[in-house]
């Protein structure tokens, strides 16, 4: 392909534009797979999520992803009743409603650290420290500690409500950092964990969600003496002893007479959630596909513009005994070569970028990107790109073919 080499400037630019578009497409694909995985991996080992009656999506969002608010709470009595059910292996209570500098505070108990699993079968691990022992101990998610620069023993003030800037803070009852969790790539990283009792304690003197006047406040020391069993929690996670029991339990919770409760199976809710998020994801893929198409159209333009200046070259080849089919296949080969090189360069570019960015992404966002390997989906995509390139290349090839038929051996230059 000396002819192509002769036009290496244009050819290189064409290859480059295809490469960039291909790596964009591959990158989106990779991200999408990785995001989907990490999405599905957010919580595992949990059979049911239980909260006040609401839609499964809402329940999943606030209990697992810490997005949105619960409409109502679950009474402590109901929680106890279900937690003690003989078919239940374990439960994790979750109490939400407070925050610390934009990060949600999760009230829970030691079961959280013992049973919570993500990414298949990975348990929570402490990077530093240990679970809370004291009433005013706090365990930070990895992201919280990283962003706010907290160390073990630091003092933390929890704010009422969920705003990043809150005017009512639980200043009278400071917490101390007892432990910091290792990064998980799940919303756990962005959570501040305290005990359920601590949630009760900081709200002990509150009346109807309003901070009392200073003289009516109960100090931290007094709070330790009070009865701190919570009246209610926001939601809880349930694991049954046998998976077969899940549906029975789900039904009995949904029909629970004591108060209106909802139980959802995480997988089902996750699928619903993914369907929702999938729209944006599909849009991104479509955009990437169009960028690839633009790259290929650039190639088409590049080949077409050279066609006229190459008429002479083709007439010479014709005189040398080249058949019109020769000319056609020559031009097709050119399109194919450009596309193939572009795709290969794009793959190389993607891997290079992934190799650079993967550690950063996994550290920052906990999304684990598989560095190597093209999935079958990727491969068929790439093959499709080369296929489309050949399809587009057929047009200038056909034009060249027609030209050679019309021109014969005369040089119309």
């Amino acid at each position: 392909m000396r002819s192509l080499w002769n036009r290496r400037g244009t050819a290189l630019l064409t290859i480059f534009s295809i490469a960039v578009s291909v790596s964009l497409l591959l990158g989106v694909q990779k991200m999408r797979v990785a995001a989907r995985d990490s999405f599905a991996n957010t919580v595992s080992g949990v059979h049911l999520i239980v909260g006040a009656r609401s839609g499964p999506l809402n329940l999943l969002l606030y209990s697992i992803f810490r997005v949105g608010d619960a409409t109502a709470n679950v009474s402590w009595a109901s929680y106890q009743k279900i937690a003690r059910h003989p078919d239940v292996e374990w439960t994790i209570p979750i109490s939400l409603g407070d925050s610390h500098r934009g990060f949600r505070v999760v009230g829970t108990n030691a079961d959280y650290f013992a049973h919570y699993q993500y990414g298949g079968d990975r348990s929570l691990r402490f990077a530093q420290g240990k679970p809370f022992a004291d009433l005013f101990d706090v365990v930070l998610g990895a992201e919280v500690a990283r962003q706010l620069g907290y160390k073990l023993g630091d003092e933390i003030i929890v704010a009422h409500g969920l705003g990043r800037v809150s005017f009512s803070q639980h200043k009278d009852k400071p917490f101390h950092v007892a432990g910091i969790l290792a990064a998980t790539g799940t919303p756990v990283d962005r959570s501040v964990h305290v005990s359920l009792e601590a949630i009760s304690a900081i709200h002990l003197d509150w009346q109807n969600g309003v901070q009392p006047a200073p003289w009516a406040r109960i100090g931290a020391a007094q709070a330790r003496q009070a009865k701190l069993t919570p009246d209610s929690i926001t939601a809880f996670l349930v694991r049954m002893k046998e998976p077969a029991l899940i549906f029975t339990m789900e039904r009995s919770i949904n029909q629970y007479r004591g108060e209106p409760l909802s139980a959802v199976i995480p997988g089902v809710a996750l699928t619903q959630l993914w369907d929702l998020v999938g729209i944006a994801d599909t849009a991104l893929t479509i955009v990437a596909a169009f960028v690839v198409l633009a790259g290929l159209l650039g190639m088409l333009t590049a080949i077409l513009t050279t066609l006229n200046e190459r008429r002479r070259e083709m007439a010479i080849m014709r005189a040398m005994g080249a058949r019109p089919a020769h000319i056609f296949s020559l031009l097709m080969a050119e399109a194919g070569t450009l596309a193939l090189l572009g795709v290969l360069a794009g793959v190389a570019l993607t891997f290079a970028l992934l190799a650079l960015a993967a550690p950063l992404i996994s550290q920052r966002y906990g999304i684990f990107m598989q560095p190597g390997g093209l999935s079958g989906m990727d491969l068929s995509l790439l093959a499709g790109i080369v296929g489309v390139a050949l399809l587009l290349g057929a047009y200038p090839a056909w034009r060249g073919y027609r030209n050679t038929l019309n021109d014969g051996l005369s040089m119309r230059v």
Partner: protein
Amino acid sequence: MTTPAIELRDVVFGWPTGPTVLDIARFDVARGEKVFVRGASGSGKSTLLGIIGGVLQPGRGSLRVLGTELANLRPGARDRFRGDHIGFIFQMFNLIPYLSVLDNVLLPVRFTPHRGAAFVAAGALRAEARRLLVALGLHDPALQKRAVTELSIGQQQRVAAARALLGSPELIIADEPTSSLDYDARADFLQLLMQECARSAATLLFVSHDTSLGSLFDRSVSLREINRAAQPAGAAA
């Protein structure tokens, strides 16, 4: 008695939408003959060469080149036949600019392997290409590796001649190869071309509007005389 190199009978050609361009009752060229065809531009020169080269298909009549009736060949076979048996030299722009001199000379072999059949080994073919270049006055080995765009037009035409002669095709067709050369270079070029044609016993069909060259050939034919189609000037490029 061998068949003639070119045997043309009642050949008529016209573009689908235009008038008849070419109408020749009879035109023969014997093997080894060097024929000068005189014709001003627009006299159907290019068309005649296109028909003999098998690129254009005459509407009527019979055309035998080296004993083969071209009308009986399919287009692909005609292309191969042209590549195998005919060497072309054009007026200018003969060479592919991004190939080296040597690669330009070797170009025909890429499309028609039979062309080099006499020099089976690729090495022998290269040696033959070099010999032709030297014989045509391009002695400098460094020059053979150079890009053709750096050559003078005279040198380029010699390279083109070397390419046409490579593999000793039976028929050499030259379409105004000297019109872009000055007078001295013209005489030199013709002499060398004739010499090499004689060496490989090739038939030479030389087309030009320059009547002063006619005396150098075995025979001189005026296209206007043999073409019965009335030619409006400038109808064919």
